């Protein structure tokens, strides 16, 4: 069984919000209608987004690290938002595990947003229906696009390749390997929701250098002393090589 998901590498994310704007651009332009904004240019702008990049400061000055944390629907394997939906508008696709909302069935009761511990769902204030990340379901299967472009808009946009996309149930997929090899983890494991999206932790790159490695053992200068200065009549480097 396929379970499509994103793997987000916190070691690489620089917090540029390109995934946010790209997501908004793609998903506000699609057949499912706009992601409505209110007062976009006013004093108090607000709007519907599928994806947000948040910033956290870890540690205490001066030993701090800034962690940029992109957050979207995690497409849980056991999504708590789905069974509570009274209309069946919220559902998890069998074929690829994507959790979706049928905007034509949603009554806007907000109960699913209460049932999501991650705050991944946002109601569209104009259309009055619940919205959330679709993993760009209208893009990843579009055979009109070149195969390399059949990825979620956020993945396409990420300039540092911090976002990977694939099937976490396929042990050989790029996402499964990334999770396995880089200690990928899920958010809020205490609720048993089994999020499909995973995050890769910050990694320290340490290079261990021993003192003796700083000096060449076979240092010819050390063995032979300073080489004598060549005489003026000897050929120079320019004479023996042709550039």
């Amino acid at each position, binding site marked *: 069984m396929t379970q499509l998901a994103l793997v987000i590498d916190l070691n690489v994310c620089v917090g540029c919000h390109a995934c946010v704007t790209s997501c908004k651009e793609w998903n506000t332009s699609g057949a499912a209608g706009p992601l409505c904004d209110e007062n976009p240019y006013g004093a108090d702008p607000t709007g519907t987004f599928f994806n947000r990049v948040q910033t956290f400061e870890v540690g205490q000055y001066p030993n701090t690290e800034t962690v940029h944390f992109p957050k979207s629907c995690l497409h849980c394997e056991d999504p708590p938002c789905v069974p509570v939906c009274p209309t069946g508008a919220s559902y998890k696709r069998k074929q690829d595990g994507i959790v979706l909302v049928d905007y034509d069935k949603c009554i806007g009761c907000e109960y699913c947003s209460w*049932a999501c511990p991650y705050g991944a769902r946002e109601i569209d204030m104009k259309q009055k229906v619940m919205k959330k990340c679709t993993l760009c379901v209208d893009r990843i299967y579009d055979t009109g696009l070149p195969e390399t472009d059949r990825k979620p808009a956020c993945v396409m946009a990420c300039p540092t390749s911090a976002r990977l996309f694939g099937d976490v149930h396929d042990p050989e997929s790029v996402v499964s390997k990334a999770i396995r090899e880089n200690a990928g983890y899920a958010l809020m494991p205490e609720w048993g929701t089994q999020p499909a999206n995973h995050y890769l932790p910050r990694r320290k790159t340490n290079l261990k250098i021993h003192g003796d490695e700083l000096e060449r053992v076979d240092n010819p200068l050390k063995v032979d002393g300073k080489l004598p200065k060549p005489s003026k009549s000897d050929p120079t480097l320019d004479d023996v090589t042709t550039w």
Partner: protein
Amino acid sequence: MKPAFSVIFLTTLIGAGQGLFLALFTHQSYALFGLLPMQSDAFYGYGSALALLFLIGGLVASFFHLGRPERAWRSATQWRTSWLSREVIVLPAFMGLVFLYGAAQLSGYRPVLVTLPSGLSFDMTIVLGVIGTLLSFALFLCTGMIYACLRFLREWHSPLTVINYILLGGSSGFILAALYSASVAPSQSGFFAGWAIIITLLAFAGRGASLWRNARLKPKSTLQTAIGIKHPHIVQRSMGAMGGSFNTRAFFHGKSAAFMRAIKPAFLLLAFVMPLALLALGILTPALLGVAFIVQYVGLLAERWFFFAQANHPQNLYYQTIG
């Protein structure tokens, strides 16, 4: 959570309606076994009509909670998994039963359906009343479970939630029944007021128990589990938006800590202490029963507001700092 007034009115109004119906049928059951004088059909009939009015009020209020009320019929489809869907089915079913019960009383259409060997006979109204009672409890269960089933809203995730919906609705309904009978059958208002005192005391204990429990809850989710970084000092610097979002509007009650501290004793006083005192006095002075019902209803609105506001959603961990 941000308390939604549509849901506050829905739960308090149907609670009073359900409790009133239970009170009326309790009286009829007592009377059936000769423990109380049987009242006229009109007493039970118009009482059911009053209960129905409260239920209709609640149903109307519930529509204001929906973004797309014209699609509300769809919400009856997922009864296999969703307590909200179950409530959507049970509420109209219960309203139908209250209507039939009242109609059978008022029209006098009450054929005897079962006669026991002892000579005790059960007519149509008794059968409808029993089904209505079961549906009333089913509705309390559905309403309570809508909140109690959400496991990470730990203030709600407790059997006390369901118990308190039953007891608070029962208390409100029995006080309403005492008020109703004081005006149409004064001799019976003591029976209702007596039961109202007992149920209000139980509700006081139940709500007190849930307040005691919630004051001792330790959050399971922390910023550490929310972003998966195991460090004791994590501070949010930006939530990713500066103008607010659905997440900042729907999950924070937006009131000060002082307000939260003040509303708790206020609703305990209004919903429990004052109604109990007024009920005790009201057995002698029926005029006070009306005051008791209104004071308690205001108290229940505050209680329900606090019930929602106190629930701390784990998503709030992600929305702490605008920047």
